[in-house]
């Protein structure tokens, strides 16, 4: 018998080598207690969280929690069904209405995760003879959406407007075209030149989908994302988003003004063939989304945090993913996986949790310590974080 697991041997070996040095496994951390959006207990120790996607700190918002508890009491713990059968409750409609109001768009479709939103929309709207043109650094859910469908897939160099244009011009006349972009790329925290890219896409007859997972709630005048900030949201055909970041729960969505959008509810397999979100989840999401419409002060504080951390890390001598802060993600570039894992562990011992990101998630084989800020991090916490980075960097010889 051929062991189907033998293909994983190189990875198993790499992990064993790394962990045999006595290092804490960076991919096996347990949060024993969570005190707030910014603090948890890990290994019995109070730890500042700098590696969550809790950008707006909504997970412990009193109104959000109250809405969830009420829904749990009134509608039960789960729907036990698909959205198209017995899985659409009043709460699912209410959260879709909240999204329509938030984005000022005609249609909203809620999926059980953000991953499924990309999987479902991309695989369904791009058919066999259509072309999907995507940035090489696209998230796994976008690639998996391409793999689930059977369209022709064309990648272009990260954020390269000319490379996108060249490829669009070479696509055969009459073929359907979907350009897939992200507002914020989550590994380095850099923003896409959407203004130019959407213009080029439209000039070449393509529909445009933008994943705004990492920008919702704090980028753009109404928090609608990078497309709004760059003034092109009206030309974007589909916006994909998630409840698992700024909204503070779990779930995914697509909003659109396409007049035929609603038909997707019947033809999109990752929407149809899965159970819908529990009532408590959609209730917390709807409450959170409505609150995110009026959070100007928190947005400003999040940006302040991002600028402060970026400047501080640079001053300490770390190499960062972007030359200026472009989002709530600040990526610290590590020379290799060994140093990355050592720094990650040293930071954890200091009482700081960041994400250790490595290939295939990262571009160009990079190892990153990815820091994501929260609007609830205080200025003092940011200073504390910088002190920890300084100590860990010196202890590991990283700076």
């Amino acid at each position, binding site marked *: 018998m051929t062991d189907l697991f033998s293909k994983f041997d190189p990875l198993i070996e790499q992990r064993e080598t790394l962990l045999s040095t006595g290092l804490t496994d960076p991919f096996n951390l347990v949060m024993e207690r969570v005190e707030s959006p910014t603090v948890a207990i890990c290994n019995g120790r109070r730890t500042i969280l700098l590696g969550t996607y809790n950008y707006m700190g909504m997970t412990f918002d009193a109104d959000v929690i109250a809405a969830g508890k009420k829904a749990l009491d009134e509608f039960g713990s789960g729907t036990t069904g698909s959205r198209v059968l017995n899985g659409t409750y009043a709460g699912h409609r209410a959260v879709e209405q909240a999204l329509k109001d938030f984005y000022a768009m005609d249609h909203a479709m809620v999926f059980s995760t953000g991953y499924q939103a990309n999987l479902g929309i991309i695989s369904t709207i791009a058919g066999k003879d259509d072309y999907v043109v995507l940035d090489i650094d696209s998230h796994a859910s976008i690639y998996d959406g391409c793999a689930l469908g059977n369209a022709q*897939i064309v990648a272009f160099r990260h954020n390269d407007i000319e490379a996108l244009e*060249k490829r669009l011009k070479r*696509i055969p006349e009459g073929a359907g075209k979907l350009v897939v972009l992200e507002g914020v790329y989550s590994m380095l925290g850099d923003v896409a030149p959407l203004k130019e890219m959407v213009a080029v896409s439209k000039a070449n007859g393509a529909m445009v989908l933008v994943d705004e997972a990492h920008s919702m709630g704090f980028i753009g005048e109404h928090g609608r994302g990078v497309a709004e900030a760059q003034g092109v949201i009206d030309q974007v055909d589909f916006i994909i988003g998630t409840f698992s970041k700024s909204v503070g729960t779990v779930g995914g969505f697509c909003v659109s003004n396409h007049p035929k959008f609603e038909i997707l509810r019947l033809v999109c397999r990752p929407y149809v063939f899965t159970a819908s979100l529990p009532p408590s989840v959609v209730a917390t999401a709807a409450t959170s989304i409505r609150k995110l419409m009026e959070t100007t002060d928190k947005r400003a504080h999040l940006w302040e945090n991002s600028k402060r951390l970026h400047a501080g890390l640079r001053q300490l001598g770390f190499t960062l993913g972007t030359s200026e802060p472009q989002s709530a993600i600040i990526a610290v570039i590590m020379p290799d996986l060994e140093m990355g894992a050592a720094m990650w562990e040293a930071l954890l011992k200091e009482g700081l949790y960041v994400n250790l990101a490595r290939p295939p998630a990262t571009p*160009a084989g990079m190892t990153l310590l990815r820091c994501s800020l929260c609007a609830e991090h205080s200025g003092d916490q940011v200073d504390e974080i910088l002190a920890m980075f300084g100590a860990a960097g010196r202890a590991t010889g990283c700076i």
Partner: protein
Amino acid sequence: MDQSDETFDRVMALIEPFNKKGVAVTAATRFQQDLEWDSLTVLDFVASIEDEFDIIITMNMQAEIETVGQLVDAVRGLTEK
């Protein structure tokens, strides 16, 4: 099998700047195993082939291409259309 023609020569010339390990390239040379190209190198190389021949080599096609000879065949197919 003798593959040499103009397309083959042009592809070979475009491989050279990316052949950092100085591998002796033939039609049987495999991009991943022999040239040891990572995904970013592949992207840049594919872009240079696409620009040279004014074609698109989709990721669907790339998944089927392992060797230099297979790439040359694919380019021939795309430029004959």
